[in-house]
């Protein structure tokens, strides 16, 4: 690897990394390995490399193999270059019951790629993940840092289209649902409506 591509923190990320390290007691700075890997992944357009793992190992005073163990254990660290938008379709049971197979099929067809592949223009990488914790609004798709819930084959294609054109998209439920409330609006404690703002979460 030539000197030009050598990984090093940008000044902002250096400061950020120090912030993470400061969260842990003296001598336990290795605990910061996960946020630092994430930070480095972001700096490196979405994936980590051996060089980055070694850099972080040195930075935290831990052997490279220990960093590699962490980086390969968690699926949110990518080890190959990914597209600008990382589309991750949830395939776990609740989403699957709610039609995740169709969502995946729509994505594949629309993007013209298989799971684990990246479109030629480098815009999209498609993947399947296990439960993202958004089951209540299944099916769910993560794109980058955003959750898109209650998607249908049509809405997901629409989102992908907009992203391709650089247009704004709105994360969250795609069917008008308010956060994770029932689709038709609240059904319990309905008479408390209006008072909730005042009494807050204390009740």
């Amino acid at each position: 690897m030539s000197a030009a591509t050598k990984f090093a923190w940008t000044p902002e990320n250096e400061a950020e990394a120090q912030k993470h390290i400061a969260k842990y007691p003296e001598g336990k700075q290795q605990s910061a390995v996960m946020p630092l890997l994430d930070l480095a992944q972001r700096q490196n357009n979405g994936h980590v490399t051996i060089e980055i793992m070694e850099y972080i190992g040195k930075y935290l005073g831990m052997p490279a193999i220990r960093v590699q163990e962490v980086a390969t254990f968690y699926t949110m660290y990518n080890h190959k270059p990914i597209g600008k938008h990382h589309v991750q379709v949830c395939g776990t049971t609740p989403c699957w019951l709610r039609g995740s197979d169709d969502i995946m099929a729509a994505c594949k067809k629309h993007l013209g790629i298989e799971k684990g592949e990246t479109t030629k223009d480098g815009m999209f990488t498609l993947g399947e993940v296990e439960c993202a914790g958004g089951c209540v609004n299944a099916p769910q798709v993560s794109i980058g840092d955003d959750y898109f819930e209650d998607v249908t084959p049509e809405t997901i294609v629409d989102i992908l289209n907009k992203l391709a054109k650089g247009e704004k998209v709105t994360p969250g439920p795609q069917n008008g649902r308010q956060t994770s409330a029932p689709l038709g609006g609240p059904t319990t404690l309905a008479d408390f409506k209006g008072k909730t703002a005042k009494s807050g979460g204390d009740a």
Partner: protein
Amino acid sequence: MPTLTINGTEVTVDAGKSVLQACEQAGVDVPRFCYHERLSIAGNCRMCLVEMERSPKPIASCAMPAGDGMVIHTDTELVKKSREGVMEFMLLNHPLDCPICDQGGECELQDQSVAFGSGDGRFSENKRAVEDKNMGPLVATTMTRCIHCMRCIRFSDEIAGVEIMGAIGRGDHTEVVTYLDGLLDTELSGNVIDLCPVGALTSKPYAFTARSWELKRHPSIDVMDAVGSNIEVDTRDGAVMRVLPRLHEDINEEWISDKTRFAYDGLKKRRLDRPYVRKAGKFEEATWGEAFAAIKTGLKGAKGNEIAALVGDTADMESMFALKGLMNSLGSQRIEARQDGAALDAKIRASYLMNTGIKGIEDADYLLLIGCNPRSEAVMVNARIRKGTVKNGLKVGRIGAVADLTYTVEDFGDDASLVKAAKGGRHEISKALKAASKPMIIVGQAALAREDGAAILKMAHDLADKYCISEGWNGFNILHTAASRVGALDLGLTTEEGIKGLLKSAKTGDVKAMFLLGADEFDSSTLADTFTVYMGTHGDEGVKHADVILPGVTYTEKAGTYINTEGRVQQAEKASVAPGDAREDWTILRALSDIVGETLPYNTLSELRIALNEAVPETATLDTLPEADWSDFGTDGDIAKTPIVPIGGNFYQTNPIARASDVMAECVSVREGATEEATGTNG
């Protein structure tokens, strides 16, 4: 101290013990894979599940601290079912290729599945397959067999002190690897083979050469260094097939170094298997009779101290004793064993022993290394120091060349005169020694094999005397590198002039005849004009200028007594058969004594040993750590302000056997390759 009930029997165990250990104490067997008493607890295999009353599910006994009042069952239906279940999971992805697996016959997975498994599995899908890794010339891998107990990883991290093994990926994709598929770069690497409960890590040199049940096992003592590691030499049809460690808590625990384990192919190569006599500059094969006759002729005209002898590094007590007997009867006292020229003093036993003992290192709280690199000179001592640093907070300082010893070392520089400064009282070293309650120093041969070696020995004595001696504690230690050295000193095989003087005398003709008892660690060209008899095993340095060669036997081919660097006397059994016409060294010397008309007074090994016990009473006390009396030694003198230069050469090639070994040569070349590559990519 908690008391718990195990299968109806009450046991009381030390606080901090696990349920599994409590079961062991109660004499109840609990199967296990990941648990190993010398490694940290992982609790990841679940084979040790037992039933605990009032617990809704079985517990992993290795990871559960024993508690007062616990009621444990290991013989219930639930435990049986749990074991069967774990076993079935374990075998889901295991290839079941025992017929072609080297571990077969001594495999924990095999044994435990027979004992605790259910006979049949229900998994009919494809098994996963894992690519094999390349860990170097010693450890063969078949990673599909790995059951992810992580013992190998914990061993490299915790005992060997090299963090290069790990488990990458997760779940079904977990793979045990060395970092970037690199060399398992530790001189303790072979131990992962013993630790691996399955056939994932096996011995590369031993691969497919024998089955464990065909082997004869012989307890023996290692001679690759002065530690005296306890080993088992496994033979088939009289040939050494492999070498394994034997448990000795005070010496090597259950580990051995890679040189100890893998140099055995050197036993079969470059061997001297018949006598040779040099005629007109060329070696010619000879009979024993011809060789002895040639010696008789050669010795003509050499009288008394004109005959000298050099003793090699791997000689046993018996042959050294016979050599001494022969030399003395010829009227010569010139026998020298210190091939490296170390200024050791044979008169005071405490002056050349590791008085603290290897296990004693675990009690020490400060250690000063003086001109010694335990990692290459005595791997097991280094492992013990590391253990002290990890378990007991031992701090280590060093006067001498910088080298990675796998633990933190505070370097004070390599200037020999620092020993004097340390004694002084104002130097940081003095302060550290003074602050410690059980301080020790280890003096290496590099510090003593100098012109001012005797002065350094004296200064080290004074230093120890001032700081490291207290009631019940002797912190003065010499680390030897040669298996024969302490025994030779006990026999008094030293000369005023030392090896340098002897070789000079050979040049001037003051020494007319020279016997070499396996002596190969010096420049033999100085003996070109001296009548030289080489008695030994390998065509190495010593034979180059020899006039007569007498083929002796190696440590596995004879019963021998050895005294390790602690002064501990140990005996090895004869394990393998010597090649060709080679004879046990003491019998050669005995026969030769007959020829020269000074017959040695023993005909059998036991007669010899009785005589040896009389001459050196220490040899009668087998396997005990001696308590040698502390007194003054060394010689006052100036210590030069010069660096202590490391000695000993490459760890893998320190003696004729190791130098003849292809496996050891490969260990060297793979490391040279690694450094070249490193400079190649970084430069």
